[in-house]
Structures are given as structure tokens and as C-alpha cells.
């Protein structure tokens, strides 16, 4: 099969350094760190080294739509907006209809899962929100990007832990290279900065190397010495 050349025409992101591409690249190449000490659960002692993302999506996502979107999906929509804009592919708020969407996502709406289930289990008279299931799915970011921008080509989610986004970008590259499509929006989104998920990561000793110096991580010490730093989100 003949292969075609493939080009990246635009990049959009939502990151711990912000969502302005030039600013982010400048900070990254200057070696600036967005990692800081965070107390994940105000009701429990202990801190972690994290690089939290401050994502303001209100200007792009109306409150009604946002009510049904997990944080990861909101970040995906904002990043996709920037990418489409940078590629000159955003016309009257819509993207290219025939484009494919290849999105990586590990958990998706874990904060929605925590919030909705906590409310449900705490009060037997409360009902679970009807939107809970679609909100927590890993396919949420790809689905919301598709709906928000009217992109209805092949829409795929790769969920393979830390390589999810890399796999998604690879699939998009392969699809274009081998002629399955001309345009693709590829990337990934995740939003796991909620107390339940972080409690689990903390127990595994991730997310903290310099925790010792900062006194932020008790159980992670041995793991940190062996594995080096791994920052979440």
C-alpha cells in the first residue's frame, strides 16, 4: 500500500503551564516547572507533588453543556478548539465534518465518578444522576469533541494507561498515511486530580520524589528513590 506524507498543521493544549502554546513552549524550554506541593484532600493530612491544570472552559462551554461533561472532556474540547483554530480548520465554530478523532484517555471522568457515587452512597434516598455513566467513560473526551465541533468521521478512544495519547496520535498518523482519511484530530485528555484517585496513586508511591525534602510523602520514599519522579495530570 502506498503511503502518504503526514503533517501536523496545528497544536492546541491545556497544560499545567496554561493553554497558550507559545507561553507553554517558552516555559518548557526554559526549564520552568509547574509542579507544586498540593494537599489533595482537605480532610486528610499529607501533600503530594503535582502539576495541577487550571482550565477555564466557561468561554467555550455553556453551563448547560458543562453540566454533562467531566473535567477531562472539558479540557479536550478547549485543546481541540485551539488546535482547530491553529490549523485554520475552525469555520463558524465547527470543525471539518469528515475528519477523524483519535483520543487517548485512561480513566476519563473519575472526579464525576467520585462525586456522584459519594452522593448516592451517602444518602439512600438520593438517586444517581442519569448522566453518570456517559460522564465517567474514557470515551467522553472524544465524544464531546465530536459533538462540540460537528466532526463525524471515525472516532476512536485509546485507553492504555500512560501511552493512551501516544497510541491515539500513532493511529491517526497511520490512518492518514495509508489513506483512510485526510484529516484527523489526535491527542489525549485526562483529569484525575480528585481525592479518590490521588489517594490510590499516593499509596503506590508515585507522584513524589522530592517528597522527602518537602516532607510531603511518607510511603512513597522507597519507591521514589528507585523510580524517579512521575507527575500526574
Amino acid at each position, binding site marked *: 500500500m502506498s503511503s502518504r506524507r503526514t503533517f501536523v498543521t496545528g497544536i492546541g493544549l491545556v497544560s499545567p503551564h496554561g493553554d497558550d502554546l507559545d507561553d507553554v513552549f517558552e516555559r518548557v524550554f526554559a526549564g520552568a516547572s509547574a509542579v507544586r506541593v498540593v494537599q489533595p484532600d482537605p480532610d486528610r493530612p499529607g501533600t503530594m507533588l503535582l502539576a495541577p491544570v487550571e482550565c477555564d472552559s466557561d468561554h467555550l462551554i*455553556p*453551563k*448547560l453543556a*458543562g*453540566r*454533562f461533561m467531566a473535567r477531562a472532556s472539558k479540557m479536550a474540547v478547549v485543546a481541540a478548539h485551539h488546535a482547530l483554530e491553529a490549523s485554520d480548520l475552525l469555520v463558524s465554530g465547527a470543525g471539518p465534518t469528515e475528519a477523524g478523532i483519535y483520543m487517548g484517555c485512561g480513566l476519563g471522568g473519575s472526579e464525576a465518578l467520585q462525586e456522584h457515587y459519594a452522593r448516592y452512597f451517602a444518602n439512600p*434516598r*438520593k*438517586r444517581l*444522576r*442519569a*448522566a453518570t455513566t*456517559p460522564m465517567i467513560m474514557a470515551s467522553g473526551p472524544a465524544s464531546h469533541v465530536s459533538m462540540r465541533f460537528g466532526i463525524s468521521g471515525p472516532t476512536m478512544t485509546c485507553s492504555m494507561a500512560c501511552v493512551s495519547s501516544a497510541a491515539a496520535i500513532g493511529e491517526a498518523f497511520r490512518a492518514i498515511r495509508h489513506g483512510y482519511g485526510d484529516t484527523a484530530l489526535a491527542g489525549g485528555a485526562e483529569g484525575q486530580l480528585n481525592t479518590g484517585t490521588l489517594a490510590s496513586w499516593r499509596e503506590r508511591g508515585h507522584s513524589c520524589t522530592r517528597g522527602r525534602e518537602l516532607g510531603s510523602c511518607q510511603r512513597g520514599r522507597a519507591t521514589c528513590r528507585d523510580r524517579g519522579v512521575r507527575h500526574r495530570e
Partner: protein
Amino acid sequence: MQSYDFLVKLLVEEFGVSPEELMPEATPSGLGLYSLSTIEMVRELEEEFGIKFSNEQVKFSTLGEAAHLADELIGAKES
């Protein structure tokens, strides 16, 4: 009437619908509510007043009709 007032408050505060758009003749789709958001609106109504819409009753056309049905269900429950 208590149902209508509740719906207005819910839609403005929780769903982000503009108060100017809210009138008894307003349709769910006209307000930007699709199937899932309409279901959630009904569930909130049911939870607030301890009532239950039947599958047929969920097919209301307007906000006023939804409130009227809810008021009837509340009345039937209290009588």
C-alpha cells in the same frame, strides 16, 4: 405552581438556562435540553416532590405541561 417555580430555579441555577428564556410555553429542545438533560430535569423534580412520572408523562411538550403534570402527581399523592 410550586413545580413550575422549582423548575425555573433549577433550570437557572443548576442548568444555566437564561431566565428570559423561561416561560410555560418553552419546549425542552428550545431551551437547549436534549434527552439526557430532560431526564435529569424530571429526576430532580421527582426527587424534590417525591413523585414519579410515567414513561408516557415524560413525553411532555412544554415546561408548563411538565409542571402541570407534576402538580397533578403531587395532588394525587397528598389526597
